[in-house]
């Protein structure tokens, strides 16, 4: 890996947003390919962050600082990436179910997904089932992620999946669920495709779902 890419990945790992922006800018000015900067520097750095988080070496705020640095670098690359028609891994629609206003976990998963190269569409919190369905119709994501932090709001996941079935959209997407009270058993019961116990494993689950589809 060229030294610049290593430097970008290292600064990203340490959450140094300004340094990442400066180095990405420098790399672009040196004529390096935007796609390579994305794949060989930013995504590599973020993968290391994801791995370190899974291994327990980093705390959540550190992951988020790294994700912000990744986002800042990506913002710089985006105009060039669209020019070269560079496709990202796929679209990922995410939201917290109706009646639930806790969005910290959802935001963390969103950042991790973006860091892994997904284009995420964030519907926010307290999202009614119909809004999830409309978003799936509109954005045609590969994966839909739903989060709930309360036992009282978990059933909204089932309602949303049933509504997606009624709309004839269920087979076109993979569905991932997560949140403190959600279990693998519950995910199976409501016929979700994947369950993620925490943000650290969300990217792995998403990648597995895509490779199996």
């Amino acid at each position, binding site marked *: 890996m060229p030294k610049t890419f290593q430097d970008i990945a290292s600064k990203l790992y340490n959450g140094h947003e300004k340094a990442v922006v400066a180095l990405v800018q420098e790399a672009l000015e040196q004529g390096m390919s935007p796609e390579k900067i994305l794949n060989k520097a930013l995504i590599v750095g973020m993968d290391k962050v994801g791995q370190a988080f899974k291994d*327990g070496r980093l705390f959540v705020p550190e992951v988020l600082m790294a994700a912000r640095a990744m986002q800042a670098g990506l913002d710089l690359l985006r105009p060039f990436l669209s020019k070269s028609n560079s496709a990202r891994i796929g679209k990922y629609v995410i939201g917290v179910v109706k009646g639930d206003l806790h969005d*910290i976990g959802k935001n*963390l998963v969103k950042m991790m997904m973006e860091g892994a190269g997904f284009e995420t569409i964030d519907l926010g919190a307290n999202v*009614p089932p119909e809004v999830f369905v409309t978003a799936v119709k509109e954005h045609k994501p590969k994966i839909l992620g739903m989060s709930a932090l309360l036992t*009282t*709001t978990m059933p909204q996941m089932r309602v949303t999946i049933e509504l997606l079935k009624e709309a004839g959209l269920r087979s076109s997407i993979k569905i991932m669920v997560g949140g403190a*009270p959600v279990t693998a*058993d519950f995910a199976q019961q409501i016929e979700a495709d994947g369950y993620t116990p925490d943000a650290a494993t969300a990217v792995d689950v998403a990648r597995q779902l895509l490779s199996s589809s």
Partner: protein
Amino acid sequence: MEKEKLKAVLEEKKDKIYLITPAQGGNIPIVAASGQSLAEAWENAMIGLYVYGCQIRTQYDTKDKEGNYVDPPSQDCTMLISIDSPLSEPMIHMGGIPGGFEDLEEYVQEVRDGIKDSWIRDPLDPEDTRWQYTYHQRLFSYELPLSEYDRFLYQLPPEEKEKFHAKETAHFLLDHDYVRVVEKEIKGKKQTFVQINQIQYIIEKLSQQPFTRQAQAITWQPYMDTDIYDPACLQSMWFRILEDENQQPTLNMNIRFRSRDAYDASFMNCFAFIHIMEYVAQEVSKRIGQEVKIGRYMDQSDSFHIYGKRLADFENRFLANLFGRDFSGRTFSRKDAEPYFQERRKQLKEKLASFNKK
């Protein structure tokens, strides 16, 4: 190996982590932890809980189809945390935040400023699954139904009120600025409620009588909280002002929780309450015309616990970082987090508007 490392940590922190009552003979262990800063004291409390706590089941532990517990029991104790200098840096322990620094700022605004009080559910709407209460609402706008008796007394002219000797009753309380009378229409019938800003009461009480033992705010509403799924964990906050050796007024604060998610919530709670402490000190300073400085902060949790399903993460992350990184690597200063706080401040108006719209 890990046991040896923990033993070494306990030896190093023997003046900061105490076992007061051990877990034996049916006794819930009592542990005390202290620190100069919030980050240090919280970290010591987590170590004390892990080492000296006992194992207790909770109603939140998940079970499999056969009804067997999937999660291990929680690690639990009664915990006393004392922080010598609550504003000293580094204030933030990164292991205590389940989100980013931005979320910490949002939580402070939720507790201190009430930005999410509008998310409290309409009790008459069975479809409304939003929050039952917020700490801000209970502290700054504690609501009680007003009885016909109090309503009658409240409406009397002052000289008539004086005939009633019990000054403590609601008809006198209602004359204070920190009490509001509100009318709500419930199923077509008007009902009267009082809303008490307990923090304003505390500020006024401390300004008039710094040594008072009555500067207290509570959250518990027995007529509601004894039979709901997730009643308020915070029970009370209590303040008192003492003069230091240089005659400078110093604000002391005591907090009591009945139950506390130690790993995922207690740090953020303490961080927000220290912001309330700052607010009270500033407001009392304005009223007495002298700076009130921040003194020690004491925080008691009757049940201070790490949920069973979070124990593995605690061991793999919190302990691994405790053994593998120095204190500065595990912590962050409030000053350095300020840019993140500022960013969330800018975004909050839009975020709240979008939630309220739904």
